[in-house]
């Protein structure tokens, strides 16, 4: 699924993906014997600011499939109908989560009756109304939640994550 149409700032994203590549290159230089010149490096990864949807298009309890911070990192936007931690929008009820289980990387499924994301691999479940808290499961992390911002025009923009995504040792590859 291509997400290019969702990007707020294409140029910025290209720049950031280039920066990510450069960081990897810098790491590589530390393990060869030739002396390397020290370079300043950011303490945090640089997250892209990506438009994932609009307030108007979300219906209560109907998750919208998205991806963040890139196409290989699936997630959802959900309007929960109830103000919750990390919730944005006029009702403070819009949240976004990774849908890759942080235990072994299986895809999570949304249970609309109790608003949890459930893993078919090893039965872990995460509460969308409680910041992605693992209700029960084998993950040693709670579910990565998106830092969301709503623009004046109703665009929902993701600009960060609060836990490491499964399957990558840097949230921005």
């Amino acid at each position, binding site marked *: 699924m291509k997400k290019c149409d969702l990007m707020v700032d294409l140029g910025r994203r290209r720049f950031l993906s280039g920066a*990510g*590549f450069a960081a*990897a*290159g810098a*790491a*590589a230089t*530390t*393990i060869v014997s030739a002396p390397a010149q020290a370079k300043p490096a950011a303490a*945090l*990864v640089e997250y892209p600011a990506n438009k994932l949807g609009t307030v108007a298009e979300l219906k209560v309890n109907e998750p919208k499939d998205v991806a963040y911070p890139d196409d*290989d*990192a699936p997630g959802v936007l959900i309007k929960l109908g109830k103000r919750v*931690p*990390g919730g944005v929008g006029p009702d403070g009820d819009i949240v976004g989560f990774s849908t890759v289980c*942080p*235990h*072994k*990387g*299986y895809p999570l*499924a949304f*249970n609309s*009756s*109790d608003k*949890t994301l*459930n*893993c*078919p*691999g*090893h*039965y*872990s*479940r995460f*509460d969308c*109304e*409680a*910041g*992605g*808290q*693992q*209700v*029960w*499961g*084998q*993950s*040693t*992390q*709670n579910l990565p*939640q998106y830092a969301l911002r709503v623009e004046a025009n109703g665009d929902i923009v993701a600009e960060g*994550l*609060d*836990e*490491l995504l*499964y*399957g*990558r*040792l*840097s*949230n*921005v*590859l």
Partner: protein
Amino acid sequence: MTYKRQIDRLPIVPADAKEHNVTCHFCIVGCGYKAYTWDINRQGGTDPSQNKFKVDLAQQQGADSSAWYSPSMYNIVKQDGKDVHLVIMPDKNCVVNSGLGSVRGARMAETSYSEARSTQQQRLTHPMVWRYGAMSPTSWDDALDLVARVTCQIVKDQGEDGLFVSAFDHGGAGGGYENTWGTGKLYFGAMKVKNIRIHNRPAYNSEVHATRDMGIGELNNCYEDAELADTIVVVGANPLETQTNYFLNHWVPNLRGTSMDKKRAELPNEAHSPARIVIIDPRRTVTVNACEVEAGKERVMHLAINSGSDLALFNAWMTYIAEKGWVDKALIAASTNGFDKMVAANKTTLEQAAALTGLTVDQIRQSAEWIASPKEGNARRRTMFAYEKGLIWGNDNYRTNGALVNVALATGNIGRPGGGCVRLGGHQEGYSRPSDAHVGRPAAYVDKLLIEGKGGVHHIWGCDHYKTTLNAYQFKRTYKKRTDLVKEAMDSIPFGDRTALVNAIVEAIKKGGLFSVDVDIIPSQIGQASHVWLPAATSGEMNLTSMNGERRMRLVERYMDPPGQAMPDCLIAARIANNMERVFREIGMAQVADNFKGFDWKTEEDAFMDGYHAHEKGGEHVTYARLKAMGTNGFQEPATGFADGKIIGTKRLFADGKFGGKDGKATFMETQWRGLQAAGKQAEKDKFPFLINNGRANLIWQSAYLDQKNDFVMDAQPYPFIELNPADMAELGLKDGDLVEVYNDNGSTQAMAYPTPSAKRNQAFMLFAFPTGVQGNVVSAGVNEFVIPNYKQTWGNIRKIASAPENTRHLSFKSREYAV
């Protein structure tokens, strides 16, 4: 807000990182892990040539990746005095877990001692003694001298019965063959200590006496049997939460039907289907739910019996199966004693059992059919029986254990593929000690004797009675009173005057005081009463050997330094022995002193060679070097030889039909029902409205001794949960997360209300052994004839004590059952 680590990247394991074999040091399953360490100022890269996994880490890794680790699998620790990066991640090549990590084991790195990242700063880093009214640091020499002087004087005055000992007897952390041998050689070799108890129970006894008495060791099958069985019977256990990766990696494939190819290949010439499962548990657990998800409800039978009535069910199964003739007549004739006598004595009709268990006659009959009715072509049905604390710490332990083994033995399911009758286990095992025959049977009820004022010195090894004993409320109050007498005496003398100090302690002991020495990795709750703390090393900070629930023995290679001056328990035991030898000579007891020779070990490997290698069955084939070469798969005990660079093990016990009785046979046991066996239990049941069932949970390891300082755990579990039916909560005026008091005539404790629609009315389930609310406080002193505690059958009352405190308000109280 829910706890988040705010970690967005991790250092990459470089291609040349050091690799160490690790077996998880928590539960019995013993999942294989690898520990990678590398210098603090280096890191790998994303290019396949630059990392240990030889993969492109600039790409998203797929599910079940063996090239990804979570923040909980990373830390910075000391190795040979220098900071190094540490990653401990599951090993895909280990046949036990095939790369799976549980929510406990996958936090091994994060729950390691780190100065750089401030994890587990609670660890003891040097000996501490009671001095000037507080626990204060001292040297090993000083601490050991004080311990030896007081201990030797009390042994001189009262004999060895004046020395009380509480000691782990298991494998994994706080155990292992090295450390059980070290402590065993001290208390059963140099001395013959009788007043000794094990980490989780008040006496020195087997939790599974009955199966052993029948000639059938309790860990007799292999994990693959769960993939091969036609039917799995699980009694009083919740393996998804407490033997997680055994369940996920070996039971689920059989329930899903994905082990069918293996069944056909290994057991040709008989019909096969995906497994059925019979679960005996008064409570609906997440295990029941997962089984229904995988196998379909029609292949899962959850028998939610009346608490404590298991024995009646098993006798009814046995009676019905014998009447139907679904028994292994050839095996019974060739390899067993007492079958007819047992069947006659245990005769229980389906109707009688239905009345006692609360099940229907049809449920009992149908479950017996699932266990033993022949398959197509009259082939014997392969049934694996597994049990744990619901039976072991349940009503009438000895007979109930025997009754279940009767069924397994009669149906020919011991020593055969797809069979076994096994305890599932808590810790790994690692028992190697001189004979304990002098302890006797029944063994001394140590906690009761301590309450009664017996004993003068108490050595504690990795145990915390305050959290993990029965009658804990009374135990704590008495123990504090007795140890306070000694603290007051110590406060009256300048610490530097050793002779006067020892005399004052001895005088206080004569007045009912108790001198307490606590060997542990952290300051435990019972340690708050102690006078000396000796800091121990744990798994990975020393080389350590243990075996898992299928007797799979592995070596955990030391990958980091112990904190500060902490030492392996076996070496602490050796140094206590050295000091006691010296003191006995000084006080003119040279003959006694000679008993303490043979403790000149310098390393844990010395203890291993002296103990396991020299004393255990097959031990002569086993060395550290050979185990290291066997990696995370090790071998299954007992070893029978060494060939082609490999230790040869034993896949299943009793496969040849030879059992453990003196005549090489197994013996059936007469196990008549006798109601709630432990003294006072029936009266407690009649008096109080709520069953206070109790047990372990997925997130917490053991008594939370490490978890209590882990942010991820304590954010989710600040208090022990108590599951209650929502209607009961409404009647009690309770909301989610409110604090309740649980109380009865034994004592009181606290817990956090967790609404649980699947809980039966008046049947609460409370987390066991948690530091902020000890369930043992309300468990009576009643035990069985061999001093096995009966935690499960506890009844009490419940009342609200406080509305949800701040640290429970962010919690999710939704159902724990996976549902889509």
